[in-house]
């Protein structure tokens, strides 16, 4: 441990430290991601109100991908319970299955885009209503990839037995981020269903 850390760990008992700074940083990241999607969905509504808006059906697979993503959130949470109880074998299974479900979700999104393309709904050279769908789902998928990378990192630390009842911070941060990505998709899915 470096001298600076030693000094800090002594001073960490001070009153002002209200929250793990890394968790706080994550929440601020989430705020900025929220702002991206808030602005894009507002732009969507504003643009829609101007008329000349093509109507089409969302790919049916999005419903199933939503369920898959919800399941991955559940397995992540199951992992958290296991980590708290020091059930490290089950923890690995939980993280592994979350990773699998996350990748499955991405694959299903791809299938959804293929379905759109086969229905002549394109990103380029198309009505903004079509392009917006790709932007919203694509940007969410991009953030989901960052979440998957995080899950892989957590999976590696679980194999090194670095996640357990007394060392939960990293897992908790990953869990919060993953739940957020899940909630974000739910918001986008419902938003797109309502404002087609």
């Amino acid at each position, binding site marked *: 441990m470096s001298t600076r850390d030693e000094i800090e760990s002594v001073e960490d008992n001070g009153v002002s430290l209200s*929250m793990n700074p890394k968790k706080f940083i994550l929440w601020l990241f989430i705020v900025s991601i929220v702002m991206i999607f808030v602005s894009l969905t507002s732009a969507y509504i504003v643009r829609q109100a101007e008329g000349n808006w093509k109507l089409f059906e969302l790919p049916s697979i999005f419903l199933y991908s939503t369920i898959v993503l919800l399941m991955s959130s559940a397995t992540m949470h199951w992992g958290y319970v296991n980590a708290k109880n020091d059930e490290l074998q089950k923890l690995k299974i939980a993280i592994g299955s979350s990773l699998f479900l996350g990748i499955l979700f991405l694959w299903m999104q791809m299938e959804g885009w293929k379905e759109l393309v086969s229905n002549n709904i394109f990103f380029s050279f198309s009505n903004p209503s079509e392009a917006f769908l790709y932007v919203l789902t694509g940007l969410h998928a991009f953030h989901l990839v960052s979440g998957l990378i995080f899950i892989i990192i957590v999976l590696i630390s679980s194999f090194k037995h670095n996640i357990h009842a007394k060392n939960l911070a990293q897992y908790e941060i990953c869990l919060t981020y993953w739940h957020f990505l899940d909630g974000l998709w739910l918001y986008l899915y419902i938003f797109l269903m309502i404002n087609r």
Partner: protein
Amino acid sequence: MATVDLQIHSHEVHAHDHHEHHEQSFIRKYIFSEDHKIIAKQFLISGMFWAILGGGMSMLFRLQLGFPDANLDWLKPLLGEWIENGKMNPEFYLALVTMHGTIMVFFVLTAGLSGTFSNFLIPLQIGARDMASGFLNMLSYWFFFASSVIMFVSIFIETGPASGGWVIYPPLSALPQAMSGSGLGMTLWLCSMSLFIVSSLLGSINYITTVINLRTKGMSFLRLPLTIWAFLITAIIGVLSFPVLFSAALLLIFDRSFGTSFYLSEIYIAGEALHNVGGSPVLFQHLFWFLGHPEVYIVLLPALGITSEIIATNSRKPIFGYKAMIGSILGIAFLSFIVWAHHMFVTGMNPFLGSIFMLLTLVIAVPSAVKAFNYIATLWRGNIVFTPAMLFSIGLVSYFISGGLTGLILGNAALDIQLHDTYFVVAHFHLVMGTASFFGMVAGIYHWFPKMFGRMMDARLGYIHFWFTFIGAYLVFFPMHYIGIAGFPRRYYSHTGFDAFSTFTDLNQFISVAAFLTFAVQFLFLFNFIYSIFKGRKASSNPWYSNTLEWTTPVNPGHGNWPGEVPTVYRWPYDYSKVGADDDFIPQNVPLSATLSSNLEHEKDLQKVEQIDISSPNAQ
């Protein structure tokens, strides 16, 4: 296995911090440094580089505006093919204006100002060893650096840098056919700004986390110096508004390169219809100004925070209305998010909507006036020490008032329709946002130079710098009001083509000459800055007799800022000239029990609590 692991994990967690243990190499210490003070200096030097470049560009287009008939062949060695037959290429003029705006708003007054002073002062003034995440802080600088390199490269490409104005309205910026700058130059602009947004977000997130989580013992929110309040709120505005610029830029990138039609609709170029149908250029303006307006306060608030601190210190008086100052910062920040459409009064918006935005805009005058009043009340009957930093802070107050007043005029939808996009607007924002923030930045450099470099800047050169800059900037921007009221539009390459404006030729010449002189004086400052780093008078640890915590560190604070324990805070930062005190200042780390003669009634109660704290064995 699990049980074994429980013992070792604490080492594992800190494994990534191990490098700080060893003597650092030059590269780790000065280049890829995670120390907030080094990162602050990196931002400062980069900001100054950009300021010279951005300022230099304004000299070139002032040359064109002031002397439209002059032969500019002598600039050929510098500008090459952009000078054609002794004249500046009109598209290059537009590129200069665009780059000047982009550089000054983002690279100088956002990165150079917030990046420098938030990084430098937040840990020092709240009593923290460093930022919450040194690594993210380092990333923030290097993202800014990468963004700077791309923007710099874009200046030298053959088709010229982005030229559609710093607001990059589509369709002008979206179609490469529209102007040469909308080709590769615009692509590089968007790449650069995307990296800039990442840098700004990383920085802001770090600032907020540090202020909220890493304050030293006793440093409650109501004991924070106003600088920290300003930096905190600035960072919050940044986290909320920069992602929106990212959205706007992302859709523009798709329109430019991927054939979508978010902002483009039914455009004919050279008789041929483009494929884009259904887009809305006004949508871009909404998204852009949702960042664009808060950005104004991202630029201004840190300068106001710095000024509050400097004025209180050098008036030897407590800041007038500490809580009102915090309230007005919060008020300005809140209002900044709901006034963006006042930039768009002429887009044909619903007049009722226009009235709402007008009302909200005019409400900003209230917190702004509170701030101006509090500055003046702090100065009033103070025991003023006229250091160069103090002069620049007073200068800021002057510019803030004179520039802010025209904001009331421009905020009126009916008046704005006449004045929109004229030099009146240019005069307004250069005074209230450009010059005022620049003065705040320079004041900050003069004031915290001793803490940054352990030496003093030369005060006499500082006075010369101040008076020439103060008078010069007024001479530059004040006449622009008249030209603007007469209807002279901004961004025009030449005014000699219109009879109505030829009467302003001499006024334009006057502005240009004043601008050249003002710009030249800045080199005096630059000389003073560089000379003082190496040869300046050695500073004492508290040269301005200030109360805040950064002055309790050694003259050259090392890694971790305080060699021993971080000081505990017992009072607010503005105990200047307190009745009954031995000195005219009481630093924040002096306990109330040490200043019995000057304690006020409510402090006597606090002091009892404080003593229990100290005497109890469980006290931290």
